[in-house]
């Protein structure tokens, strides 16, 4: 009975001090299947993956690999036994070649008398890269010259070695473009054919529906159930993850045409990195969605509108007085806020606590002459973190300890506290679980009901279609299409204008 399972974990429990991350979780993984693992932030799925790959040791429970007891002492130990993982963050080592990154710790395979035969290593690396369909990556190039995405692909190549039995993909796809994802999907299909197992951790429910044979749902550190083949659907998964019925109004449900209001932000012939003479207006009370392929220039557009990057030519205006925006301070003074897609480096200060992060742009509002009272700071931070229901132990908690969704809430709380009238959100729900996603959508809807405006830059078409009043599509730096909010609008209508 146990032979058909390549890996089975039984009654695994793990706590980190006060936090009980996993309680009595048992899951069985079959050979040659794509097995999804889903759950909200805090459900324990990353902890489980870490235990399987030897990063943590379970407090209770046992694991069996191919029927034999399995207790890895480290990542490398797990690797030797055939279990590898690719993650969301940067996993390649800067400063060395792609080949060196593919064979870390295994240089002995190519060395004679202590000298490594670089040519041979590069040759073998090239073979692996070709095998996974990444021939555009050169084994002898230093990885720093490659984009984040290509470096991720090199990580994939590292994972796909001879002894691989189980590949764990931990939320990797969120940071990849379509091309990168395709390489990954190809790989998954190939591994499946070779009778290997893939454990797929992702928040992208459509992706999971498409590729998984089985999906295990975790909630609050406990096993909920398994879904098999036909049972797998985004709605079902959402429902099980959150534990309550997700109402239909996940996205906005209103479709009435908003009255033609005045423009609160105007972009006039903006030209610069990747962008060619972009003109657009943001109207009061609307959500303007901006979409396209990853490299179409929409992220750069967001930065330029907020004043972070200087355009080569063109201007950005706001408000009645047609004031030109040239840097972030100015934008903020005119009640504009910006949430970068690069959450950890750009939208929050990881090493500061929640209070400092929320109060940061609002010190002018809080101060009396030169004095900023603790009380004023606490009141503001308390009010905004309550409004967004940030899950935290206290305002003194460091942001680095928060989950992705809560970090995003803090970033939004910051601008709400500053009473911004215009928000520029770049990939606002990327890598965030369903529950928090819904909360952010509700927030956005309430925000525009209050007469404020949002520019939402997103790579997720369902989100753009579900939330925007108007959608502008960029392709290679120019506006290639504009769509109005419509219940009949579908992804295929839009994709034509993107590629």
């Amino acid at each position, binding site marked *: 009975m146990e032979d058909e399972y390549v890996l089975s974990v039984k009654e695994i429990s793990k706590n980190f001090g006060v936090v009980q991350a996993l309680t009595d979780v048992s899951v069985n993984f079959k050979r040659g299947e794509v097995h999804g693992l889903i759950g909200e932030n805090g459900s324990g799925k990353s902890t489980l993956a870490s235990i399987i790959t030897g990063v943590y040791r379970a407090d209770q429970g046992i694991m069996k690999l191919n029927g034999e007891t399995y207790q890895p002492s480290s990542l490398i130990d797990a690797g030797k036994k055939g279990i590898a993982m690719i993650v969301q963050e940067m996993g390649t080592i800067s400063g060395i070649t792609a080949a060196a990154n593919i064979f870390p710790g295994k240089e002995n395979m190519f060395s004679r008398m202590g000298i490594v035969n670089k040519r041979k290593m590069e040759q073998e690396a090239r073979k692996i890269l070709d095998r996974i369909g990444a021939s555009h990556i050169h084994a002898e190039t230093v990885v720093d010259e490659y984009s984040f995405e290509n470096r991720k692909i090199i990580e994939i190549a590292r994972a796909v070695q001879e002894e691989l039995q189980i590949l764990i993909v931990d939320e990797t796809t969120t940071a990849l473009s379509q091309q990168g994802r395709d390489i990954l999907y190809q790989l998954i299909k190939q591994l499946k054919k070779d009778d290997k197992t893939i454990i797929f951790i992702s928040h992208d429910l459509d992706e999971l529906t498409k590729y998984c044979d089985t999906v295990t749902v975790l909630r609050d550190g406990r096993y909920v159930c398994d879904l098999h083949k036909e049972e797998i659907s985004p709605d079902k998964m959402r429902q099980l993850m959150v534990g309550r019925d997700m109402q239909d109004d996940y996205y906005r449900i209103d479709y009435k045409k908003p009255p033609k209001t005045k423009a609160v932000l105007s972009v006039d012939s903006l030209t610069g990195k990747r962008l060619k003479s972009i003109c657009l207006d943001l109207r009061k009370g609307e959500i303007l969605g901006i979409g396209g392929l990853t490299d179409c220039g929409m992220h750069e557009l967001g930065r330029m509108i907020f004043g972070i990057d200087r355009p080569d030519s063109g201007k950005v205006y706001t408000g009645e007085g047609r004031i030109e925006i040239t840097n*972030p301070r100015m934008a903020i003074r005119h009640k504009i806020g910006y949430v970068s897609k690069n959450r950890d*480096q750009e939208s929050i200060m990881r090493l500061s606590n929640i209070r400092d992060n929320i109060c940061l742009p609002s010190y002018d509002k809080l101060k009396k002459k030169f*004095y900023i009272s603790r009380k004023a700071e606490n009141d503001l931070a308390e009010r905004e973190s309550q409004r967004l229901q940030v899950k935290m132990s206290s305002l003194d908690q460091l942001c680095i300890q928060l989950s992705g969704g809560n970090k995003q809430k803090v970033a939004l709380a*910051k601008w709400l506290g500053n009473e911004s009238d215009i928000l520029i959100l770049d990939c606002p729900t990327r890598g965030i679980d369903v529950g928090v996603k819904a909360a952010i959508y509700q927030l956005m809807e309430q925000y525009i009901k209050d007469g404020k405006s949002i520019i939402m830059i997103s790579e997720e078409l369902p989100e753009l279609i579900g939330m925007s009043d108007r959608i502008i599509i960029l392709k290679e730096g120019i506006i290639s299409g504009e769509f109005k909010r419509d219940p009949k609008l579908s992804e295929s209508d839009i994709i034509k204008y993107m590629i």
Partner: protein
Amino acid sequence: MTTNNLSISVKKRHNIFERVQLRDLIPFISLILIALFFQIISQGSLLSVRNLKLIMNQSFALIIGTVSCSFIVAEGDVDFSMGSMVGITAVCAAWVSQVNTILALPAALAVGLIFGLANGILYVKFRIPSFVVTLSTLLVLRGLTIFISGGGSVSVPFSLYIFDSLPVKICVAVGVIAAAYFVFEYSKLGKMCKAVGSGAQAAYQSGVPVNKLRVFGYALSATMCGLIGFFNMVRAGSAATNTGNFFETDVLIALVLGGMPLSGGASSKIRCAVIGSLIVAILSNGMVFWSINEKLQQGIKGVVFLIAVWLTFDKRNAQLIK
């Protein structure tokens, strides 16, 4: 989900005992232990009134130096040129005082300000890393000091000796500490400096004028070095080629012993500067009572520094040199 929900939930006001962590107490405990240790070694002389006055005189420069460089450190930067800054300002002030005594202090401050701005501008406009800039400044200014003092020393008129009084120094030190503490903890300026250290990009995108603050930090540090240079000069009666030598090292050691995170950010505190300075002062003073060979004293300071870093450095989150 209601958005305008000012919930009347129980406000979690952590009492003082929950907020203070063990790590915060280490410098304070070290200070007490070291004082006790040397009090015993010196058979009671360490904390005698006469010796306390000596300690206060000796720690004056260090306290001003560490407190004023706290802004730079909070921003995650470093200033290796402080010693040379003390030297050049002292020598310039001494030179000016021979012409006109009233202008001595303003001259010291002005010279400091100018070179401090230079440090900041080289760092920010020319994008040269801060430790490279300040190391170069250290060398350049030291050379300039030697040049101006003609290889010897520049003496100071007697009339300025009245400034070498402990009450004056205590007032100045207390004033500086109080002002720094207020700005650091309760003003927009201080909070923004810490924000730069915590996450410069995020701070910039939240409207913090990162570059201006960096220049400010270096200008402040150097100007206060001018203040130190002035007092050094009046105490010694002259300014010489080696005035201020190794001062930046003492500042760095004091900051670390006081528990200041070298990576900057929100956990920087003025008390770290003050406690650290007292520890170094007592250490130096106490070693004399212990009759430790002068040559060994530097070495011992180095070992203490190493141990302090090992105990307090937050390896997971810090970047010593950015």
